């Protein structure tokens, strides 16, 4: 927990925060609307004798207090997918529409990719990029099991994403859920902070900046980009947004989120950030009894 002490100045009720970080997080599943309805998933879970609790802000999510998703009928049929509550946020904020073209910049293992496809009624096109072939294999397995027919997978560094395979066309929207120091996943992976170093945080921040910048570049005027991490480090959150505001034409906009959260911060240690980063949202584990998360919505100005 020690690395988290650095956040004492920015987190209200720090004791509640650290207490929440020490509590394990139950499994959650997302209904895959490409293959099933919420109602049929309820029936199938009941038939399989699996206890499930609803999630008040999202009717396609269930918490499984006693089970992990995996060896049951609705899972085998691709009706459900194991996905943590906060991990469902960025695709809902991006709000892709049927028939659109969307880029998922850091896609593996594909939870959010397949959620994007489902939100688009599996129409249009989701280009899913990852730089790791092993993780791409997991992404492929998930898109197959969930029955998504609109996902194209590319193996490349998101910072250098090429539009060539698709004839040079840009995107209506982009999801930038970057690799990060994962501090917010501590309730699922208690050893996640064991290898924490400031130099890793600072190093990965450079990668995040490059990927977000590329996403803004390949999004058409009037389009939307969502940036998210599962970490608390301002170096990987507000600092990345602040950098991209200075590099490419975009703005950070307000959005609604039916979960308790804190605004993005404009000061961290010796740094100050653009005031619009307060439109981003910080979700702490003690807010909603979830994992930790950060999510910002950006718009590319219309021409």
């Amino acid at each position: 927990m020690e690395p988290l002490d650095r956040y004492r100045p920015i987190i209200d009720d720090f004791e509640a925060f650290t207490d929440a970080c020490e509590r394990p997080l139950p499994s959650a599943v997302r209904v895959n609307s490409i293959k099933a309805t919420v109602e049929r998933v309820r029936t199938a879970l009941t038939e399989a004798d699996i206890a499930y609790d609803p999630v008040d802000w999202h009717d396609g999510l269930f918490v499984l207090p006693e089970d992990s998703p995996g060896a049951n009928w609705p899972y085998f049929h691709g009706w459900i997918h194991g996905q943590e509550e906060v991990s469902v946020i960025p695709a809902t904020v991006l709000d892709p529409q049927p028939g659109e073209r969307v880029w998922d910049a850091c896609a593996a293992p594909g939870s959010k990719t397949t959620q994007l496809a489902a939100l688009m009624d599996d129409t249009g096109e989701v280009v899913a990029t990852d730089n790791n072939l092993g993780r791409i294999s997991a992404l492929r397995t998930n898109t197959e099991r969930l029955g998504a027919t609109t996902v194209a997978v590319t193996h490349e560094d998101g910072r250098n994403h090429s539009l060539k395979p698709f004839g040079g066309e840009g995107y209506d929207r982009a999801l930038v859920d970057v690799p990060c120091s994962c501090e917010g996943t501590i309730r699922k992976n208690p050893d996640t902070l064991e290898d924490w170093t400031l130099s890793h945080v600072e190093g990965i921040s450079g990668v995040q900046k490059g990927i977000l910048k590329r996403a803004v570049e390949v999004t058409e005027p009037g389009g939307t980009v969502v940036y998210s991490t599962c970490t608390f480090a301002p170096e990987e959150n507000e600092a990345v947004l602040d950098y991209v505001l200075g590099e490419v034409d975009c703005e950070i906009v307000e959005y609604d989120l039916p979960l308790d959260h804190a605004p993005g911060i404009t000061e961290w240690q010796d740094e100050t950030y653009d005031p619009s980063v307060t439109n981003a949202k910080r979700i702490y584990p003690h807010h909603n009894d979830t994992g930790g998360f950060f999510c910002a919505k950006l718009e590319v100005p219309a021409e």
Partner: protein
Amino acid sequence: MSDQSTVFTRLPETDDEREDPERATREEVLDFWTERFGVPPETFDGYTFWERGAGKLWLYQGSPPSPVDIEGLGMTVLRTRQEHWKPTLEAVQRFGEHASKNVIHLDEDAARAFVAGEDQELDWDGDWGYLVVTHDLAGEAEPVGVGLYVYGELRSQVPKGRRREV
């Protein structure tokens, strides 16, 4: 030079447009689903078909320029370039609800054995060969995978990595 195994080539519409004599055409793919399983051809309206490597067909919604060298394009749908074309489990789960023949319905115990990868002796009056396998889930018959029926036996074709003890 790119690795041919990662290149997707769009299927020609019909025989007239075919350059590689071994490559399936879209027409043949639709005929296969209709003749073998009674799946109406319009089920695949709006989808494009692609071949990657030798014989493995994929189905996708977009139409990027062909050939395209990427890691995945929609979902795998059918294995061709062999005597008996073989549908994938994923295609059957997604489109098998439209099948009206060569569909075998299993009871709960047999369905569990099937997804665990077990072969089982079963009565079946229809054709030998690849069948759509269904079972009851949430009040309806749901396609769950592909079985190969030969010699009085339904052989589970569930890929090793997909087998589960449900």
